[in-house]
């Protein structure tokens, strides 16, 4: 109450102008004033306002959508090829299996003994040294060798197939004799200094002391690639890049493995991967989550879902609670008794386990996430109305004995009008307080369920299911930005609801002495 100063002229003192009147505040204004004076409650209100703007406007301002996926380029090194410098004799047979390993051993023995013939399983072989580390092996007095041994290896330039035996032999022989061509089966083949074998202009094979093998069966290494690779290997380079015929450049790294005496070549390829768990940056203020979605945007949409569910559940609870509580309190007698026993029963039903069971059953039946959300709200609402019914009934029991109710009866108002027009409005203060408080607790329950993976499901975000990721110990330890912001939002919102509820209770209470 406030009065204007009285030191004015006498006429004004007795006037009935507005400025002379005692200012009377309506009960609503009084409550508001008391509420505003409560600093803690106002803080809660500000937090709530911020959360509402954050969730409802934020999702609209945010440049990303709820389920937008982000990718990043990732360099993956994969084993591409192996290079070995050949230092041992390799045996090539004309026909597979005609010169087995034991015969090879006999050849080796004969060579160390210096004899030019050896025997294996009754066959007599002779051999001829065609050059350094190059031997041709004959049997049965034939002119053409049936096998040869060399440290140089002939590989086809065009495919992964084997080069015909005689071509291999003649190529090596020409290289050894430093001839630049030979004839085989009526055709002329050219041999160049680097060991390439050409038929006309087309290169069909080449000889090299290095064995280059592709590590994947679907990869064919071109002659050019092999040559460049060998060149780099001989130079002792660690890295090199190669542009293939399609004009794509790849980077390769070469590592030498002393144990196997081989070089392994890794191709680094950039692939597009989901941008998961990327730390906060200017593009994603709170980083990205496990699916490569923007965390801040998810948080906004999550808040929206959490608040929606909270409100709808509380509305369901209140509607059922007010109707049943009102009827029960007004009529009394057996109606009251019956409804109160029903309330007792609902009090007794363990709601969290039941929701968990239903959630698990919905999981097993693969219920659509959206329908699931509706079910969740219905179940939470249906299990939670008992408290409100009790509150409303208690209030009405004491209110209906008061004079104004006798007056309504005397004026002959309808029963429904008496309950819902005259009794319920008097319960509204307590109802608002309880609703605010239960908004907080509903959001908590929803978050708990979503955290357990039984509430709101992907693709929908909810603060609970965002924190769910923390079940993964690696995330718990390393990615604070995944779960701490969601937790803070959750605590802040629930706390704000409780603070506001508390403040409202104090403000509504006329016995308050402040």
């Amino acid at each position, binding site marked *: 109450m406030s009065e204007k100063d009285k030191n004015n002229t006498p006429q004004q003192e007795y006037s009935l102008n507005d400025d002379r009147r005692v200012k009377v505040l309506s009960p609503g204004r009084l409550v508001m004033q008391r509420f505003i004076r409560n600093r803690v409650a106002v803080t809660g209100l500000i937090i709530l306002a911020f959360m509402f703007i954050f969730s409802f406007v934020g999702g609209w301002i945010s440049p990303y959508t709820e389920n937008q996926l982000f990718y990043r380029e990732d360099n993956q090194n994969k084993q591409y090829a192996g290079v070995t410098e050949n230092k041992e004799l390799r045996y090539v047979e004309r026909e597979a299996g005609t010169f087995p390993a034991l015969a090879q051993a006999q050849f080796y023995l004969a060579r160390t003994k210096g004899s030019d013939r050896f025997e294996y399983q009754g066959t007599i072989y002779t051999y001829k040294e065609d050059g350094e580390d190059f031997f041709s092996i004959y049997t049965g007095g034939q002119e053409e060798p049936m096998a040869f041994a060399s440290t140089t290896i002939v590989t086809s330039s065009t495919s992964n197939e084997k080069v015909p035996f005689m071509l291999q032999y003649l190529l090596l022989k020409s290289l050894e004799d430093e001839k630049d061509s030979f004839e085989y089966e009526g055709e002329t083949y050219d041999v160049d200094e680097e060991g390439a074998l050409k038929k006309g202009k087309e290169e069909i094979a080449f000889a090299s002391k290095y064995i280059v093998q592709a590590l994947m069966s679907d990869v064919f290494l071109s002659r050019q690639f092999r040559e460049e690779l060998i060149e780099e290997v001989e130079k002792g380079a660690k890295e090199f890049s190669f542009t293939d015929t399609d004009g794509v450049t790849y980077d390769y790294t070469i590592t030498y493995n002393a144990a196997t005496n081989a070089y392994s070549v890794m191709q680094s390829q950039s692939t597009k991967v989901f941008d998961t768990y990327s730390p906060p940056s200017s593009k994603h203020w709170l980083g990205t989550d496990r699916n490569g979605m923007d965390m801040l945007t998810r948080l906004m949409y999550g808040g929206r879902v959490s608040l929606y569910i909270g409100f709808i559940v509380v509305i369901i609870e209140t509607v059922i609670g007010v109707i049943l509580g009102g009827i029960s309190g007004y009529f009394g007698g057996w109606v009251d008794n019956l409804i109160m*026993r029903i309330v007792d029963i609902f009090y*007794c039903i363990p709601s969290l386990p039941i929701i*968990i069971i239903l959630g698990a059953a919905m999981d*097993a*039946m693969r219920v659509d996430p959206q329908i699931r959300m509706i079910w969740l709200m219905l179940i939470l609402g249906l299990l939670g109305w008992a408290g409100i019914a009790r509150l409303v009934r208690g209030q009405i029991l004491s209110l209906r004995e008061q004079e104004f109710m006798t007056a309504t009866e005397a004026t002959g108002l309808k029963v429904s009008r008496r309950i819902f027009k005259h009794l319920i409005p008097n319960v509204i203060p307590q109802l608002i307080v309880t609703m605010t408080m239960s908004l907080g607790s509903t959001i908590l329950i929803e978050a708990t369920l979503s955290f*357990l993976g039984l509430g709101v499901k992907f693709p929908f975000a909810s603060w609970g299911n965002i924190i769910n990721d923390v079940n993964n110990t690696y995330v*718990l330890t390393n990615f604070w930005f995944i*779960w701490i912001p969601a937790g803070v939002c959750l605590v802040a919102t629930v706390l704000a609801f*409780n*603070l506001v509820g508390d403040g409202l209770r104090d403000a509504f209470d006329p016995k308050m002495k402040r």
Partner: protein
Amino acid sequence: MISIVILIFVAFIIYVLMRCLPTSYLEEVARAKSMQPGSKSFEEWMQQLSATYGMDKGIIPGFFSWCGRAIRGQFGDSWKWTVPVTQKFHDSVWLSFIMGGIAFVLELLIAIPLGIISAVKQYSKTDYTITIVALTCFSLPTFFFASLLKLVFAVKLKWFDLGGLIGRSYQQLSPAGQFWDKAAHLVLPIITLVVISIGSLMRYTRTNMLEVLNADYIRTARAKGLSERKVIYHHAFRNTLIPIVTIVGGSLPGLFSGALITETLFSLPGIGYVSYQSMVSGDIPFSMFYLVFLAILTLLGNLISDILYAVVDPRVRIA
């Protein structure tokens, strides 16, 4: 008497709910269970299911036949644990009870004095601090708080393990060492439980204390010239104890119900975690048992608080 009627109705609702689960789901679960090593065959499970729950009968006769068995303690075999439900319950409930009990005592020791202080010094800085702390504790989601504790004490400081009841070297420890190992694993869960539940009791104490402090007999006591100490601890506190004792007594049976979320988060094999696993894996016998058990505990709590109310407050007489 009325409690028993309510219990029967609650059991009936739970039973109906279970019956309403699609049969395909039950069969699927039973089939999955029968794949487990050492489990009964699918037909046996289904037979047991229909025998225990009267699936072949209508809902109401089925309910009564199930009730008859349940009263005699025949809850059947758990699907998930493949042992009788009551045995699994017996194995796991004591851990929950010990944990809940310790947390409960700590909660009382912290919450009641703080509540009284904040009521006595109403509208002071202390009061605001305590109120905000209480409301924050009240608003903390268990899983978030537990994760924070894990991050700080288990991951960063490495004082405790992330979860479980026994450490890796448990078998090599002496009996005393084994005891301390278990105790160490219970520290974080108990802190979680205490912090989560402390808020409401603190608020409750404060509200009641405020009410008592505004009563006429307190004014009389002050007018008599009693010391403030005596007024508060002798006259006000004793009267505040009436509602507190009632509510504390009422929550005693709840100690057996286990802390579902906390135990799950710290993977402690208490009744809460065991039943959570059962519920998630669709273990109907165990879940049914647990739900009925919880309902009994709630009713028992109400009963105890009613009786205590009459015992503690001489003004209340049992009609």
